[in-house]
């Protein structure tokens, strides 16, 4: 009895699918890379600088917070890097360094860590940062002003602002192909529509995001902008324009789908995406901001816990 072997004792199940959080974060980062690389191609070295600074400072802020809060080190799960990457993708290529550093602080510390870290954030951290910075330093999100020194071989103004100011006549020269290929003014990682779609489909294929949210988001944008367009074609652009400009695609595939702030049941996912899509176009067309994706998703984040109460009846449930 004395020389008994010591076995590991634990509880069922004894198998695991092998999925983990880090795999998920890095998977999403890989999916975002085509759009980021296109952004670096069009906007040059400053874009690379912003992205690198954003990713590295997100990780540093998380590390610093872990240290201060005496929590275990969580940068290994890749979530901070992912938040940094997504935040960087939304910025103009010429964003100043302090702006990026402040933004990543807001994203990681205020957007995520003070709620208790990964899984506990009620809002998408990157969007919290963009919203706060957009309200605090509006001019750094004015893409026309920020990218004024660039010499583009495509339409050199931010389509959404032009649309808001001058109506559909101003955007007639912009072809959908240009928008898809990233030949438009906008955030570093938000312009290359094709790359975002491919990345998004990869995410759906890998199971990192669910198809319900992006699809219903795009459907919401499509339907609402179609209705506006029918009501006044001179003032309101059609669905294709709205889907391929601004933050729509990155919002649909990468921002609205953030795990912690989006629903998990099917009907709530559809409502959530649809709501965000509708709000996006409402803000764009009748609100004061040129792009509505940021606030639309944040508002839907807010109602997510309520929406997710719509769930199927469990087996054998006695009401």
């Amino acid at each position, binding site marked *: 009895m004395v020389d008994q072997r010591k076995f590991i004792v634990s509880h069922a199940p004894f198998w695991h699918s092998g999925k983990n959080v880090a795999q998920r974060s890095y998977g999403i980062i890989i999916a975002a890379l085509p759009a980021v690389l296109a952004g670096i191609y069009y906007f040059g070295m400053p874009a690379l600088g912003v992205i690198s600074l954003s990713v590295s400072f997100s990780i540093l802020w998380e590390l610093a917070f872990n240290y201060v809060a005496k929590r275990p080190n969580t940068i290994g799960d890749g979530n901070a890097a992912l938040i940094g990457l997504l935040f960087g993708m939304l910025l103009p290529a010429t964003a100043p360094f302090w702006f990026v550093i402040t933004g990543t602080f807001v994203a990681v510390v205020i957007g995520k860590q003070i709620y208790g870290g990964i899984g506990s954030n009620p809002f998408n951290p990157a969007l919290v940062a963009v919203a706060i910075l957009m309200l605090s330093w509006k001019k750094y999100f004015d893409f026309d002003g920020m990218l004024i020194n660039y010499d583009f071989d495509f339409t050199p103004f931010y389509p959404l602002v032009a649309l808001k100011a001058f109506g559909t006549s101003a955007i007639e020269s912009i072809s959908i192909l240009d928008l898809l290929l990233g030949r438009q003014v906008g955030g570093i990682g938000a312009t290359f529509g094709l790359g975002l779609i491919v990345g998004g489909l990869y995410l759906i294929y890998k199971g990192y995001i669910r198809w319900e949210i992006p699809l219903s988001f795009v459907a919401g944008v499509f339907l609402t902008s179609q209705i506006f367009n029918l009501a006044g074609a001179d003032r309101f652009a059609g669905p294709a324009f709205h889907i391929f400009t601004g933050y729509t695609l990155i919002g649909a595939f990468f921002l609205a789908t953030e795990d912690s702030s989006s629903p998990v049941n099917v009907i709530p996912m559809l409502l959530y995406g649809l709501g965000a899509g509708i709000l996006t176009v409402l803000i764009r067309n009748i609100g004061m901001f040129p792009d509505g994706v940021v606030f639309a998703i944040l508002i839907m984040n807010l109602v997510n816990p309520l929406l997710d109460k719509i769930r199927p009846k469990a087996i*054998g449930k006695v009401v």
Partner: protein
Amino acid sequence: MLEKLLSNLATPRFGREYIGGTLPGLQSIPMPQKVTLLLNGSANPKEQLLIKEGDAVNTGQKLSLSEEREENGAYVISSVTGTISAIYPFTGDFGRTYTAIDIDTATTETRDEQFNSLKEDPTLETAIAYLSGLPGNPPLALFSNAEKPIRTIIINGLDNDLLVATNQYFVVTEMDNIKTGVEILRKITAVDRIIIVVPRDYVSGIGEIEADIAAVDAQYPEILPHNIIRHILGQEVPAGKNFEDLGIAFFSAEAVASIGEAFESGEIPVTKTLTFIDKRGERTLVEAKIGTPIGDVFKTYSISPKDKDRLIIGGPMRGSCIYSENHPVLPDTDALFVQDESDIARVSDYPCINCGECVRICPARISVNMLIRFLEAGQYESAADQYDLYSCIECGLCSFVCVSKIPIFQYIRLAKYELSRMNTAEATNG
């Protein structure tokens, strides 16, 4: 083994390997030097016991601590002939108390004749008094409860975990005994209906039987009793209710075959068949006397588990770990699974990231993402009231897919156990 259709677009499903055409061979474990039998309940230190160390026992002899306990069903049937060498308390999973009886085996085997005289006239009383501890643990005691009459018997020819093939083996090889068992069950119980559930592939091989035959897709988690009831009776088991509340008793195919064999031969079967799964996932069927230390199974296969390996009674999804090679083979030990240290999946204390994998895979449609938040906070009552704790059919798939590696299944079991303890305490304290 995990078949995923189009990656994650469809819910992952476990296929099951049929033992069908290629039955793994049956390996007999030689007569052990010592067996350990577990008897329900613990002895009072001052009590005068019916059995004591040094008593000689015969194979098939009924052992109990007192006559009163014996009448309440707390008895074991000795699986060997020999002398009692030790009687001591034993604690099982979730604090269940047993009295362990060690018996040193003698060289010659003598059969106890008590049951033989009763075999000609099978009655429910005889069955309850002698056969409750048969291999496969037939739930015969359910029939003595007048408040919950049993109307339907479901004979389960499937096993309730992955890799386990014990009951399938009985459906393939022991159909004659099962048929006898069915006849006896019909005679001694007043049930309206007996249904035998088998994998779809086996239906044609059954032949004449006095029971309805139901075929089920042998896929996990469809093979779990709750799902079987839903498929073949079109009935959902209400949350928190037992099968007996619906008038259903589940018998394993092995238990029915054992009942048949017992009345046919007049000897109470004492040999348990189990699926042995080695570190490489190779399966063989093993026959061992009830009470055989599982270490003897390893010896037969010349396998020697290392430190930090994991020994599991049951299958990979729902089994339970044991800490000693002296642990005996019990009447409900359907499988023995050895896992190498390098294959062991660790759990973590990482928080839920709300990815929803568990929600999508849950066969009971529970909002596991919300449930686990209540369970982690220890709010078991809210979990039961608001998030369907009692709807859980305990398949373990939520833990299997959890990205954060949260031991969700264990939290659920713990919550149910804690709640039942609270309810018992409330009932006894008024």
